Protein backbone atom coordinates (compact mmCIF):
# COMPACT_ATOMS: atom_id res chain seq x y z
CA UNK A 1 0.00 0.00 0.00
CA UNK A 2 1.16 3.50 -0.86
CA UNK A 3 -0.61 6.47 0.64
CA UNK A 4 0.21 10.14 0.30
CA UNK A 5 -1.52 13.07 1.99
CA UNK A 6 -1.01 16.63 0.78
CA UNK A 7 2.48 15.59 -0.34
CA UNK A 8 4.41 18.67 -1.44
CA UNK A 9 7.92 19.24 -2.70
CA UNK A 10 9.35 22.69 -3.27
CA UNK A 11 12.79 23.15 -4.82
CA UNK A 12 14.79 26.30 -4.35
CA UNK A 13 16.25 27.48 -7.61
CA UNK A 14 18.67 30.40 -7.85
CA UNK A 15 17.16 31.70 -11.07
CA UNK A 16 13.50 30.73 -10.68
CA UNK A 17 13.17 31.00 -6.90
CA UNK A 18 10.83 28.49 -5.20
CA UNK A 19 9.56 25.86 -7.64
CA UNK A 20 6.71 23.64 -6.49
CA UNK A 21 7.36 20.32 -8.25
CA UNK A 22 4.69 18.41 -6.35
CA UNK A 23 1.74 20.28 -4.91
CA UNK A 24 -0.48 18.79 -2.19
CA UNK A 25 -0.65 15.39 -3.83
CA UNK A 26 -3.02 12.90 -2.22
CA UNK A 27 -3.28 9.40 -3.63
CA UNK A 28 -3.63 5.79 -2.60
CA UNK A 29 -2.29 2.65 -4.30
CA UNK A 30 -3.64 -0.70 -3.19
CA UNK A 31 -1.77 -4.04 -3.12
CA UNK A 32 -2.41 -6.13 -6.23
CA UNK A 33 -3.27 -3.01 -8.22
CA UNK A 34 -1.35 -0.83 -10.64
CA UNK A 35 -1.55 2.92 -10.18
CA UNK A 36 -0.49 4.96 -13.21
CA UNK A 37 0.79 8.48 -12.73
CA UNK A 38 0.24 10.14 -16.08
CA UNK A 39 1.77 13.46 -16.96
CA UNK A 40 3.80 15.44 -19.45
CA UNK A 41 7.55 15.94 -19.04
CA UNK A 42 8.21 18.11 -15.99
CA UNK A 43 4.74 17.49 -14.53
CA UNK A 44 6.18 16.13 -11.27
CA UNK A 45 5.96 12.36 -11.86
CA UNK A 46 9.60 11.54 -11.17
CA UNK A 47 9.71 13.86 -8.15
CA UNK A 48 6.65 12.07 -6.70
CA UNK A 49 8.26 8.68 -7.18
CA UNK A 50 11.54 9.92 -5.70
CA UNK A 51 9.64 11.17 -2.66
CA UNK A 52 8.05 7.74 -2.27
CA UNK A 53 11.47 6.09 -2.63
CA UNK A 54 12.86 8.47 0.06
CA UNK A 55 15.42 9.83 -2.37
CA UNK A 56 13.91 13.27 -1.74
CA UNK A 57 12.43 14.62 1.47
CA UNK A 58 8.95 16.15 1.30
CA UNK A 59 8.62 19.88 1.99
CA UNK A 60 5.26 19.20 3.61
CA UNK A 61 2.54 16.57 3.73
CA UNK A 62 3.17 12.90 4.30
CA UNK A 63 3.61 9.61 2.52
CA UNK A 64 3.61 6.05 3.75
CA UNK A 65 4.84 2.97 1.94
CA UNK A 66 3.60 -0.37 3.27
CA UNK A 67 2.69 1.45 6.46
CA UNK A 68 6.10 3.07 6.93
CA UNK A 69 6.50 6.83 6.90
CA UNK A 70 8.97 8.06 4.29
CA UNK A 71 10.41 10.73 6.59
CA UNK A 72 10.56 8.85 9.87
CA UNK A 73 11.60 5.41 8.54
CA UNK A 74 13.39 6.00 5.23
CA UNK A 75 15.65 2.93 5.45
CA UNK A 76 12.70 0.68 6.27
CA UNK A 77 10.79 2.14 3.31
CA UNK A 78 13.73 1.48 0.99
CA UNK A 79 13.88 -2.12 2.14
CA UNK A 80 10.24 -2.52 1.08
CA UNK A 81 10.46 -1.05 -2.41
CA UNK A 82 11.90 -2.03 -5.75
CA UNK A 83 12.70 0.95 -7.98
CA UNK A 84 13.04 0.54 -11.73
CA UNK A 85 13.58 3.43 -14.11
CA UNK A 86 13.92 3.74 -17.86
CA UNK A 87 17.70 3.45 -17.84
CA UNK A 88 18.96 0.02 -16.90
CA UNK A 89 21.38 1.72 -14.48
CA UNK A 90 23.83 -1.16 -14.25
CA UNK A 91 27.53 -1.21 -13.48
CA UNK A 92 29.07 -2.03 -16.84
CA UNK A 93 32.22 -3.59 -15.42
CA UNK A 94 30.39 -5.98 -13.10
CA UNK A 95 28.84 -9.23 -14.30
CA UNK A 96 25.09 -9.85 -14.06
CA UNK A 97 25.65 -12.12 -11.06
CA UNK A 98 27.94 -9.66 -9.27
CA UNK A 99 25.41 -6.87 -9.82
CA UNK A 100 22.48 -8.77 -8.36
CA UNK A 101 24.69 -10.10 -5.56
CA UNK A 102 25.80 -6.54 -4.70
CA UNK A 103 22.26 -5.23 -4.41
CA UNK A 104 21.17 -8.35 -2.54
CA UNK A 105 23.89 -7.82 0.05
CA UNK A 106 22.98 -4.14 0.39
CA UNK A 107 19.41 -5.27 1.06
CA UNK A 108 20.69 -7.40 3.91
CA UNK A 109 20.66 -10.81 2.21
CA UNK A 110 23.56 -12.99 3.26
CA UNK A 111 24.72 -16.58 3.62
CA UNK A 112 23.00 -19.32 1.63
CA UNK A 113 19.83 -17.24 1.16
CA UNK A 114 21.48 -14.91 -1.34
CA UNK A 115 22.80 -17.48 -3.87
CA UNK A 116 19.51 -19.36 -3.57
CA UNK A 117 17.52 -16.22 -4.34
CA UNK A 118 19.83 -15.36 -7.25
CA UNK A 119 19.46 -18.88 -8.70
CA UNK A 120 15.69 -18.59 -8.45
CA UNK A 121 15.58 -15.15 -10.08
CA UNK A 122 18.03 -16.08 -12.83
CA UNK A 123 16.01 -19.18 -13.67
CA UNK A 124 12.73 -17.23 -13.75
CA UNK A 125 14.13 -14.39 -15.87
CA UNK A 126 16.37 -16.53 -18.09
CA UNK A 127 19.59 -14.86 -16.97
CA UNK A 128 21.56 -18.02 -16.15
CA UNK A 129 23.17 -18.29 -19.60
CA UNK A 130 24.75 -14.83 -19.41
CA UNK A 131 25.05 -14.56 -15.63
CA UNK A 132 28.83 -14.29 -15.71
CA UNK A 133 29.11 -11.83 -18.57
CA UNK A 134 29.92 -8.20 -17.89
CA UNK A 135 26.88 -5.94 -18.07
CA UNK A 136 28.47 -3.67 -20.68
CA UNK A 137 28.64 -6.67 -23.02
CA UNK A 138 24.91 -7.46 -22.76
CA UNK A 139 22.14 -6.52 -25.18
CA UNK A 140 19.54 -4.01 -24.01
CA UNK A 141 17.03 -6.81 -23.41
CA UNK A 142 19.53 -8.75 -21.30
CA UNK A 143 20.40 -5.59 -19.38
CA UNK A 144 16.74 -4.97 -18.66
CA UNK A 145 16.41 -8.49 -17.28
CA UNK A 146 19.40 -7.95 -14.99
CA UNK A 147 17.90 -4.67 -13.92
CA UNK A 148 14.65 -6.43 -13.02
CA UNK A 149 16.56 -9.09 -11.10
CA UNK A 150 18.38 -6.36 -9.19
CA UNK A 151 15.05 -4.71 -8.34
CA UNK A 152 13.46 -7.96 -7.20
CA UNK A 153 16.37 -9.54 -5.34
CA UNK A 154 14.89 -8.68 -1.93
CA UNK A 155 11.33 -9.53 -3.08
CA UNK A 156 9.84 -6.12 -2.23
CA UNK A 157 6.06 -5.79 -1.65
CA UNK A 158 6.01 -2.38 -3.36
CA UNK A 159 7.26 -1.67 -6.89
CA UNK A 160 7.95 1.80 -8.25
CA UNK A 161 8.46 2.17 -12.00
CA UNK A 162 9.64 5.50 -13.40
CA UNK A 163 8.84 5.55 -17.14
CA UNK A 164 9.98 1.93 -17.37
CA UNK A 165 9.67 1.51 -21.14
CA UNK A 166 11.10 4.86 -22.20
CA UNK A 167 13.55 4.42 -25.07
CA UNK A 168 13.25 0.63 -25.17
CA UNK A 169 12.66 -1.41 -28.31
CA UNK A 170 9.25 -3.07 -28.76
CA UNK A 171 10.26 -6.53 -27.54
CA UNK A 172 12.02 -5.27 -24.42
CA UNK A 173 9.15 -2.89 -23.68
CA UNK A 174 6.67 -5.77 -23.96
CA UNK A 175 8.76 -7.84 -21.56
CA UNK A 176 8.70 -4.97 -19.07
CA UNK A 177 4.94 -4.56 -19.40
CA UNK A 178 4.54 -8.28 -18.78
CA UNK A 179 6.81 -8.02 -15.76
CA UNK A 180 4.66 -5.21 -14.31
CA UNK A 181 1.55 -7.36 -14.79
CA UNK A 182 3.31 -10.24 -13.01
CA UNK A 183 4.00 -7.95 -10.09
CA UNK A 184 0.31 -7.16 -9.84
CA UNK A 185 -0.54 -10.86 -10.03
CA UNK A 186 1.79 -11.55 -7.16
CA UNK A 187 -0.10 -9.03 -5.06
CA UNK A 188 2.51 -6.28 -5.08
CA UNK A 189 1.56 -2.64 -4.85
CA UNK A 190 2.65 -1.05 -8.11
CA UNK A 191 2.95 2.60 -9.00
CA UNK A 192 4.29 3.66 -12.37
CA UNK A 193 4.84 6.95 -14.09
CA UNK A 194 4.42 7.29 -17.82
CA UNK A 195 3.46 9.67 -20.54
CA UNK A 196 2.61 6.86 -22.94
CA UNK A 197 -1.20 6.75 -23.03
CA UNK A 198 -1.46 3.27 -24.56
CA UNK A 199 0.76 1.83 -21.86
CA UNK A 200 -1.38 3.39 -19.12
CA UNK A 201 -4.58 2.13 -20.81
CA UNK A 202 -3.20 -1.40 -21.04
CA UNK A 203 -1.74 -1.64 -17.57
CA UNK A 204 -3.27 0.62 -15.00
CA UNK A 205 -6.16 -0.17 -12.69
CA UNK A 206 -6.28 3.40 -11.55
CA UNK A 207 -4.87 6.49 -13.23
CA UNK A 208 -3.90 9.86 -11.78
CA UNK A 209 -3.24 12.74 -14.16
CA UNK A 210 -0.62 15.07 -12.83
CA UNK A 211 0.07 18.52 -14.22
CA UNK A 212 2.47 21.15 -12.88
CA UNK A 213 2.74 19.20 -9.64
CA UNK A 214 -1.01 18.95 -9.00
CA UNK A 215 -3.16 15.84 -9.31
CA UNK A 216 -5.84 17.09 -11.73
CA UNK A 217 -8.02 14.01 -11.78
CA UNK A 218 -7.97 10.41 -10.63
CA UNK A 219 -9.99 7.29 -11.30
CA UNK A 220 -10.31 4.09 -13.30
CA UNK A 221 -10.17 4.39 -17.07
CA UNK A 222 -13.96 4.00 -17.52
CA UNK A 223 -14.56 6.58 -14.76
CA UNK A 224 -12.22 9.09 -16.43
CA UNK A 225 -13.76 8.53 -19.87
CA UNK A 226 -17.23 9.02 -18.44
CA UNK A 227 -16.19 12.12 -16.49
CA UNK A 228 -14.79 13.86 -19.57
CA UNK A 229 -17.02 12.25 -22.17
CA UNK A 230 -13.87 11.25 -24.01
CA UNK A 231 -13.22 8.33 -26.32
CA UNK A 232 -9.79 7.49 -25.06
CA UNK A 233 -7.23 8.35 -22.43
CA UNK A 234 -5.44 10.83 -24.64
CA UNK A 235 -8.60 12.95 -24.87
CA UNK A 236 -9.07 12.64 -21.13
CA UNK A 237 -5.52 13.75 -20.55
CA UNK A 238 -5.71 16.74 -22.86
CA UNK A 239 -8.94 17.95 -21.29
CA UNK A 240 -7.72 17.31 -17.75
CA UNK A 241 -4.60 19.41 -18.20
CA UNK A 242 -6.56 22.11 -20.05
CA UNK A 243 -4.72 21.65 -23.34
CA UNK A 244 -7.88 22.10 -25.39
CA UNK A 245 -11.06 23.97 -24.52
Amino acid at each position, binding site marked *: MIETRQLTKVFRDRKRGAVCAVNALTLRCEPGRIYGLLGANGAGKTTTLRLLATLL*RPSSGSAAVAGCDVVREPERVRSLIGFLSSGTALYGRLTARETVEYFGRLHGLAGAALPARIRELFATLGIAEFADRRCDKLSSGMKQKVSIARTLVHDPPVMIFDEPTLGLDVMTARAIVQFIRDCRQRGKTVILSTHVMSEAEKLCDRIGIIDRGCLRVEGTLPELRAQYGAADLEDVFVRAVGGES
Partner: protein
Amino acid sequence: MSWRATRIVFGKELRDSLRDRRTIISMIVVPVLGIPLLMFGVGALTVKTMMKARAEVPRVMVVGAENSPQVQAALHDAKNLQLVPASADFTNAVVEKRVRAVVRLPADFDAAVARGEPSQVEIFEYQGDVKSDFAAGDLDQFFSNLRDTTVRERLTARGVPVAVLKPFSIQRQNVAPPAKVTGSLLGGLLPYFIIVLCLTGAMYPALDVTAGEKERGTMETILCCPVARTSLVLGKFLMVLTASLGTVILALLSLSGTFLFAKHVGAHSLPPAVLQSITTLDPGALAGVFLMLLPVAVMLSALLLMVGLIAKNFREAQSYAGPLMLVAVVPSIAAALPGVELNYRLAWVPLVNACLAGKEMMTGIWHWNYLALIFASASLYAAAALAAAVWLFHREAVLFRS
Protein backbone atom coordinates in the same frame (compact mmCIF):
# COMPACT_ATOMS: atom_id res chain seq x y z
CA MET B 1 25.34 3.92 9.58
CA SER B 2 26.62 0.38 9.09
CA TRP B 3 30.22 -0.68 8.61
CA ARG B 4 28.98 -3.84 6.89
CA ALA B 5 27.39 -1.72 4.17
CA THR B 6 30.52 0.44 3.93
CA ARG B 7 32.58 -2.72 3.46
CA ILE B 8 30.22 -3.99 0.75
CA VAL B 9 30.33 -0.68 -1.12
CA PHE B 10 34.11 -0.46 -0.76
CA GLY B 11 34.56 -4.00 -2.10
CA LYS B 12 32.31 -3.37 -5.08
CA GLU B 13 33.91 -0.03 -5.92
CA LEU B 14 37.40 -1.51 -5.68
CA ARG B 15 36.51 -4.43 -7.93
CA ASP B 16 34.80 -2.10 -10.38
CA SER B 17 37.76 0.28 -10.47
CA LEU B 18 40.35 -2.44 -10.89
CA ARG B 19 38.51 -3.55 -14.02
CA ASP B 20 38.64 -0.07 -15.46
CA ARG B 21 41.46 0.54 -17.91
CA ARG B 22 41.65 4.25 -17.06
CA THR B 23 42.10 3.52 -13.34
CA ILE B 24 44.71 0.88 -14.10
CA ILE B 25 46.64 3.39 -16.19
CA SER B 26 46.56 6.17 -13.59
CA MET B 27 47.04 3.89 -10.58
CA ILE B 28 49.46 1.24 -11.83
CA VAL B 29 50.94 1.89 -15.27
CA VAL B 30 51.90 5.55 -14.78
CA PRO B 31 53.67 5.16 -11.41
CA VAL B 32 55.26 1.79 -12.15
CA LEU B 33 56.51 2.49 -15.66
CA GLY B 34 56.56 6.28 -15.58
CA ILE B 35 59.27 6.61 -12.94
CA PRO B 36 61.92 4.38 -14.56
CA LEU B 37 61.10 5.96 -17.90
CA LEU B 38 61.44 9.42 -16.41
CA MET B 39 64.71 8.61 -14.66
CA PHE B 40 66.41 6.53 -17.30
CA GLY B 41 64.66 7.83 -20.38
CA VAL B 42 64.78 11.55 -19.67
CA GLY B 43 67.94 11.27 -17.53
CA ALA B 44 69.84 9.34 -20.17
CA LEU B 45 68.56 11.60 -22.93
CA THR B 46 69.69 14.70 -21.03
CA VAL B 47 73.13 13.25 -20.36
CA LYS B 48 73.46 12.14 -23.98
CA THR B 49 72.37 15.53 -25.34
CA MET B 50 74.79 17.38 -23.09
CA MET B 51 77.64 15.05 -23.98
CA LYS B 52 76.90 15.48 -27.66
CA ALA B 53 76.83 19.26 -27.29
CA ARG B 54 80.12 19.15 -25.38
CA ALA B 55 81.75 16.93 -27.97
CA GLU B 56 80.97 19.34 -30.79
CA VAL B 57 83.84 21.68 -31.78
CA PRO B 58 82.00 25.01 -31.86
CA ARG B 59 82.30 27.44 -34.77
CA VAL B 60 83.45 30.78 -33.40
CA MET B 61 84.28 34.09 -35.02
CA VAL B 62 86.88 36.70 -34.09
CA VAL B 63 85.91 40.27 -34.91
CA GLY B 64 88.86 42.67 -34.89
CA ALA B 65 91.42 39.88 -35.31
CA GLU B 66 93.75 42.41 -36.98
CA ASN B 67 94.09 44.07 -33.54
CA SER B 68 95.88 40.97 -32.24
CA PRO B 69 97.46 38.57 -34.75
CA GLN B 70 98.86 36.71 -31.73
CA VAL B 71 95.42 35.98 -30.28
CA GLN B 72 94.12 35.12 -33.74
CA ALA B 73 96.89 32.58 -34.20
CA ALA B 74 96.41 31.06 -30.74
CA LEU B 75 92.67 30.71 -31.30
CA HIS B 76 93.34 29.19 -34.69
CA ASP B 77 95.55 26.58 -33.06
CA ALA B 78 93.06 25.79 -30.30
CA LYS B 79 91.71 22.27 -30.84
CA ASN B 80 88.42 22.91 -29.08
CA LEU B 81 87.42 25.85 -31.29
CA GLN B 82 86.81 26.18 -35.02
CA LEU B 83 87.46 29.68 -36.37
CA VAL B 84 85.34 31.00 -39.19
CA PRO B 85 85.93 34.21 -41.16
CA ALA B 86 84.56 37.34 -39.54
CA SER B 87 81.56 39.14 -40.92
CA ALA B 88 79.94 42.50 -40.19
CA ASP B 89 76.59 40.97 -39.09
CA PHE B 90 78.27 38.82 -36.42
CA THR B 91 75.41 39.25 -33.90
CA ASN B 92 72.98 37.86 -36.46
CA ALA B 93 75.37 35.01 -37.08
CA VAL B 94 75.02 34.07 -33.38
CA VAL B 95 71.24 34.56 -33.35
CA GLU B 96 70.85 32.45 -36.49
CA LYS B 97 73.19 29.88 -34.96
CA ARG B 98 75.62 30.01 -37.90
CA VAL B 99 78.33 30.42 -35.24
CA ARG B 100 78.04 29.51 -31.56
CA ALA B 101 79.87 32.56 -30.19
CA VAL B 102 81.80 35.63 -31.30
CA VAL B 103 84.71 37.41 -29.66
CA ARG B 104 85.41 41.09 -30.45
CA LEU B 105 88.88 42.45 -29.82
CA PRO B 106 89.15 46.19 -29.24
CA ALA B 107 91.23 48.40 -31.55
CA ASP B 108 94.92 48.32 -30.76
CA PHE B 109 94.44 45.40 -28.36
CA ASP B 110 98.02 44.05 -28.42
CA ALA B 111 99.54 47.51 -28.02
CA ALA B 112 97.20 48.42 -25.15
CA VAL B 113 97.98 45.17 -23.33
CA ALA B 114 101.70 45.78 -23.89
CA ARG B 115 101.37 49.28 -22.42
CA GLY B 116 99.47 47.87 -19.43
CA GLU B 117 96.38 49.90 -20.23
CA PRO B 118 92.92 48.49 -19.45
CA SER B 119 91.25 46.85 -22.40
CA GLN B 120 87.98 44.99 -22.83
CA VAL B 121 87.35 41.81 -24.82
CA GLU B 122 83.68 41.20 -25.61
CA ILE B 123 82.14 37.75 -26.04
CA PHE B 124 78.76 37.48 -27.79
CA GLU B 125 76.62 34.44 -27.07
CA TYR B 126 73.06 33.11 -27.42
CA GLN B 127 71.88 32.84 -23.82
CA GLY B 128 69.90 29.70 -23.12
CA ASP B 129 71.51 27.75 -25.96
CA VAL B 130 73.70 25.03 -24.48
CA LYS B 131 76.08 24.85 -27.44
CA SER B 132 76.51 28.63 -27.47
CA ASP B 133 77.06 28.53 -23.72
CA PHE B 134 79.81 25.93 -24.12
CA ALA B 135 81.50 27.96 -26.90
CA ALA B 136 81.34 31.21 -24.90
CA GLY B 137 82.72 29.32 -21.88
CA ASP B 138 85.65 28.04 -23.95
CA LEU B 139 86.40 31.56 -25.21
CA ASP B 140 86.11 32.93 -21.68
CA GLN B 141 88.53 30.26 -20.47
CA PHE B 142 90.95 31.05 -23.32
CA PHE B 143 91.08 34.77 -22.49
CA SER B 144 91.26 34.12 -18.72
CA ASN B 145 94.29 31.92 -19.31
CA LEU B 146 95.82 34.58 -21.58
CA ARG B 147 95.26 37.23 -18.92
CA ASP B 148 96.82 35.04 -16.19
CA THR B 149 99.82 34.30 -18.41
CA THR B 150 100.28 38.03 -19.14
CA VAL B 151 100.13 38.85 -15.41
CA ARG B 152 102.58 36.08 -14.55
CA GLU B 153 105.03 37.28 -17.26
CA ARG B 154 104.86 40.87 -16.01
CA LEU B 155 105.42 39.86 -12.40
CA THR B 156 108.32 37.63 -13.40
CA ALA B 157 109.83 40.48 -15.46
CA ARG B 158 109.69 42.75 -12.40
CA GLY B 159 111.06 40.03 -10.14
CA VAL B 160 107.87 39.75 -8.08
CA PRO B 161 106.78 36.22 -7.08
CA VAL B 162 103.49 35.08 -8.62
CA ALA B 163 102.25 34.11 -5.12
CA VAL B 164 101.84 37.82 -4.35
CA LEU B 165 98.52 37.62 -6.21
CA LYS B 166 97.26 34.80 -3.99
CA PRO B 167 98.40 35.45 -0.41
CA PHE B 168 96.11 32.66 0.76
CA SER B 169 93.75 30.14 -0.77
CA ILE B 170 90.17 29.30 0.14
CA GLN B 171 88.74 25.78 0.29
CA ARG B 172 85.11 24.94 1.02
CA GLN B 173 84.49 21.64 2.83
CA ASN B 174 81.18 19.85 3.15
CA VAL B 175 80.60 18.56 6.68
CA ALA B 176 76.99 17.44 6.14
CA PRO B 177 76.58 13.66 5.98
CA PRO B 178 75.81 12.42 2.45
CA ALA B 179 72.26 11.40 3.52
CA LYS B 180 71.52 14.95 4.64
CA VAL B 181 72.94 16.42 1.46
CA THR B 182 70.65 14.10 -0.48
CA GLY B 183 67.78 15.08 1.83
CA SER B 184 68.34 18.73 1.04
CA LEU B 185 68.29 18.00 -2.66
CA LEU B 186 65.27 15.70 -2.64
CA GLY B 187 63.49 16.88 0.53
CA GLY B 188 61.48 19.54 -1.24
CA LEU B 189 60.79 17.40 -4.27
CA LEU B 190 59.60 14.19 -2.64
CA PRO B 191 56.50 15.58 -0.84
CA TYR B 192 55.54 17.43 -4.01
CA PHE B 193 55.98 14.25 -5.96
CA ILE B 194 53.81 12.29 -3.48
CA ILE B 195 51.06 14.93 -3.58
CA VAL B 196 50.95 14.84 -7.37
CA LEU B 197 50.73 11.03 -7.22
CA CYS B 198 47.98 11.16 -4.57
CA LEU B 199 45.96 13.37 -6.89
CA THR B 200 46.72 11.36 -10.01
CA GLY B 201 45.71 8.08 -8.39
CA ALA B 202 42.56 9.42 -6.75
CA MET B 203 41.22 11.64 -9.50
CA TYR B 204 39.71 9.18 -11.92
CA PRO B 205 38.13 6.82 -9.32
CA ALA B 206 36.77 9.78 -7.32
CA LEU B 207 35.03 11.27 -10.32
CA ASP B 208 33.84 7.88 -11.56
CA VAL B 209 32.10 6.87 -8.31
CA THR B 210 30.35 10.23 -8.06
CA ALA B 211 29.79 12.18 -11.29
CA GLY B 212 30.17 8.98 -13.33
CA GLU B 213 27.43 7.27 -11.27
CA LYS B 214 25.14 10.27 -11.72
CA GLU B 215 25.70 10.18 -15.46
CA ARG B 216 25.03 6.44 -15.74
CA GLY B 217 21.95 6.64 -13.53
CA THR B 218 23.33 4.18 -11.00
CA MET B 219 23.42 6.81 -8.24
CA GLU B 220 19.62 6.77 -7.98
CA THR B 221 19.64 2.98 -7.86
CA ILE B 222 22.17 2.77 -5.08
CA LEU B 223 20.37 5.45 -3.07
CA CYS B 224 17.24 3.29 -3.19
CA CYS B 225 18.99 0.63 -1.10
CA PRO B 226 18.22 0.48 2.62
CA VAL B 227 21.67 1.78 3.55
CA ALA B 228 22.54 5.05 5.27
CA ARG B 229 24.07 7.58 2.92
CA THR B 230 27.03 7.96 5.28
CA SER B 231 27.83 4.27 4.78
CA LEU B 232 27.63 4.66 1.01
CA VAL B 233 29.86 7.71 0.83
CA LEU B 234 32.41 6.23 3.24
CA GLY B 235 32.63 3.08 1.12
CA LYS B 236 33.29 5.22 -1.94
CA PHE B 237 35.75 7.41 -0.07
CA LEU B 238 37.74 4.41 1.18
CA MET B 239 38.09 3.15 -2.37
CA VAL B 240 39.33 6.55 -3.58
CA LEU B 241 41.82 6.70 -0.71
CA THR B 242 42.99 3.17 -1.51
CA ALA B 243 43.58 4.18 -5.13
CA SER B 244 45.44 7.30 -4.01
CA LEU B 245 47.68 5.52 -1.51
CA GLY B 246 48.07 2.53 -3.83
CA THR B 247 49.43 4.86 -6.50
CA VAL B 248 51.89 6.42 -4.05
CA ILE B 249 53.05 3.03 -2.69
CA LEU B 250 53.49 1.60 -6.18
CA ALA B 251 55.37 4.72 -7.23
CA LEU B 252 57.67 4.53 -4.18
CA LEU B 253 58.30 0.83 -4.84
CA SER B 254 59.02 1.61 -8.46
CA LEU B 255 61.31 4.44 -7.37
CA SER B 256 63.20 2.12 -4.99
CA GLY B 257 63.50 -0.52 -7.72
CA THR B 258 64.74 2.10 -10.14
CA PHE B 259 67.29 3.34 -7.61
CA LEU B 260 68.56 -0.18 -6.99
CA PHE B 261 68.78 -0.79 -10.70
CA ALA B 262 70.56 2.52 -11.21
CA LYS B 263 73.03 1.72 -8.44
CA HIS B 264 73.98 -1.69 -9.78
CA VAL B 265 73.31 -1.63 -13.49
CA GLY B 266 72.49 1.72 -14.95
CA ALA B 267 75.05 3.89 -13.17
CA HIS B 268 76.63 5.02 -16.43
CA SER B 269 73.38 6.59 -17.64
CA LEU B 270 72.89 8.86 -14.63
CA PRO B 271 74.70 12.03 -13.60
CA PRO B 272 77.07 11.32 -10.64
CA ALA B 273 75.21 13.76 -8.34
CA VAL B 274 71.95 11.89 -8.89
CA LEU B 275 73.68 8.54 -8.40
CA GLN B 276 75.19 9.69 -5.11
CA SER B 277 71.81 11.01 -3.99
CA ILE B 278 69.96 7.78 -4.58
CA THR B 279 72.50 5.66 -2.75
CA THR B 280 72.31 7.73 0.43
CA LEU B 281 68.54 8.13 0.95
CA ASP B 282 67.36 7.62 4.53
CA PRO B 283 64.54 5.01 4.62
CA GLY B 284 63.35 6.35 8.00
CA ALA B 285 62.88 9.81 6.53
CA LEU B 286 61.05 8.32 3.57
CA ALA B 287 58.65 6.52 5.92
CA GLY B 288 58.21 9.74 7.92
CA VAL B 289 57.31 11.71 4.79
CA PHE B 290 54.82 9.04 3.77
CA LEU B 291 53.20 9.05 7.23
CA MET B 292 53.01 12.84 7.29
CA LEU B 293 51.32 12.83 3.91
CA LEU B 294 48.65 10.28 4.96
CA PRO B 295 46.20 12.92 6.22
CA VAL B 296 46.98 14.94 3.09
CA ALA B 297 45.94 11.95 0.95
CA VAL B 298 42.71 11.71 2.99
CA MET B 299 42.03 15.41 2.44
CA LEU B 300 42.74 15.30 -1.30
CA SER B 301 40.61 12.16 -1.77
CA ALA B 302 37.71 13.80 0.06
CA LEU B 303 38.11 17.01 -1.96
CA LEU B 304 38.09 15.11 -5.25
CA LEU B 305 35.01 13.19 -4.08
CA MET B 306 33.33 16.55 -3.38
CA VAL B 307 34.25 17.83 -6.83
CA GLY B 308 32.69 14.72 -8.38
CA LEU B 309 29.56 15.08 -6.25
CA ILE B 310 29.03 18.72 -7.14
CA ALA B 311 29.42 18.11 -10.89
CA LYS B 312 26.49 17.07 -13.02
CA ASN B 313 28.51 14.71 -15.17
CA PHE B 314 32.00 13.32 -15.63
CA ARG B 315 33.09 15.99 -18.07
CA GLU B 316 32.05 18.80 -15.75
CA ALA B 317 33.83 17.04 -12.89
CA GLN B 318 37.04 16.87 -14.92
CA SER B 319 36.89 20.59 -15.60
CA TYR B 320 36.59 21.24 -11.84
CA ALA B 321 39.34 18.76 -10.94
CA GLY B 322 41.92 20.53 -13.14
CA PRO B 323 41.96 23.75 -11.08
CA LEU B 324 41.92 21.66 -7.88
CA MET B 325 45.12 19.95 -9.05
CA LEU B 326 46.68 23.38 -9.55
CA VAL B 327 45.50 24.62 -6.15
CA ALA B 328 47.02 21.54 -4.51
CA VAL B 329 50.28 21.58 -6.41
CA VAL B 330 51.13 25.28 -6.01
CA PRO B 331 51.57 25.15 -2.19
CA SER B 332 53.75 22.06 -2.50
CA ILE B 333 55.95 23.82 -5.06
CA ALA B 334 56.10 26.89 -2.78
CA ALA B 335 57.22 24.68 0.10
CA ALA B 336 59.92 23.11 -2.06
CA LEU B 337 61.49 26.49 -2.83
CA PRO B 338 64.86 27.10 -1.20
CA GLY B 339 64.66 29.45 1.76
CA VAL B 340 61.06 28.57 2.73
CA GLU B 341 61.40 27.18 6.23
CA LEU B 342 59.02 25.72 8.77
CA ASN B 343 57.57 27.99 11.45
CA TYR B 344 54.47 27.98 13.67
CA ARG B 345 52.48 30.07 11.18
CA LEU B 346 53.27 27.82 8.21
CA ALA B 347 52.60 24.74 10.34
CA TRP B 348 48.89 25.58 9.99
CA VAL B 349 48.85 26.12 6.22
CA PRO B 350 47.41 23.00 4.54
CA LEU B 351 49.74 21.14 2.17
CA VAL B 352 52.57 23.64 2.75
CA ASN B 353 52.91 22.33 6.32
CA ALA B 354 53.18 18.65 5.34
CA CYS B 355 55.61 19.45 2.52
CA LEU B 356 57.83 21.50 4.83
CA ALA B 357 57.74 18.75 7.45
CA GLY B 358 58.76 16.28 4.75
CA LYS B 359 61.59 18.55 3.69
CA GLU B 360 62.86 18.79 7.27
CA MET B 361 62.67 15.04 7.83
CA MET B 362 64.53 14.35 4.61
CA THR B 363 67.36 16.62 5.79
CA GLY B 364 67.49 14.71 9.06
CA ILE B 365 65.81 17.36 11.21
CA TRP B 366 63.04 15.97 13.40
CA HIS B 367 61.31 18.83 15.23
CA TRP B 368 58.85 16.64 17.12
CA ASN B 369 56.76 19.58 18.34
CA TYR B 370 56.34 20.86 14.77
CA LEU B 371 55.71 17.37 13.43
CA ALA B 372 53.01 16.72 16.02
CA LEU B 373 51.38 20.08 15.31
CA ILE B 374 51.48 19.52 11.54
CA PHE B 375 50.13 15.98 11.78
CA ALA B 376 47.32 17.23 14.03
CA SER B 377 46.44 20.18 11.79
CA ALA B 378 46.63 18.05 8.61
CA SER B 379 44.37 15.46 10.27
CA LEU B 380 41.96 18.22 11.23
CA TYR B 381 41.76 19.45 7.63
CA ALA B 382 41.36 15.87 6.41
CA ALA B 383 38.50 15.28 8.86
CA ALA B 384 36.85 18.54 7.81
CA ALA B 385 37.11 17.64 4.11
CA LEU B 386 35.68 14.18 4.76
CA ALA B 387 32.85 15.62 6.86
CA ALA B 388 32.08 18.06 4.03
CA ALA B 389 32.00 15.20 1.51
CA VAL B 390 29.60 13.23 3.76
CA TRP B 391 27.44 16.35 4.18
CA LEU B 392 27.33 16.90 0.41
CA PHE B 393 26.24 13.30 -0.09
CA HIS B 394 23.16 14.06 2.00
CA ARG B 395 22.19 17.11 -0.06
CA GLU B 396 19.35 16.54 -2.53
CA ALA B 397 20.36 19.61 -4.52
CA VAL B 398 23.79 18.07 -5.07
CA LEU B 399 22.79 14.46 -5.74
CA PHE B 400 19.94 15.30 -8.09
CA ARG B 401 21.41 18.39 -9.68
CA SER B 402 20.22 18.70 -13.25
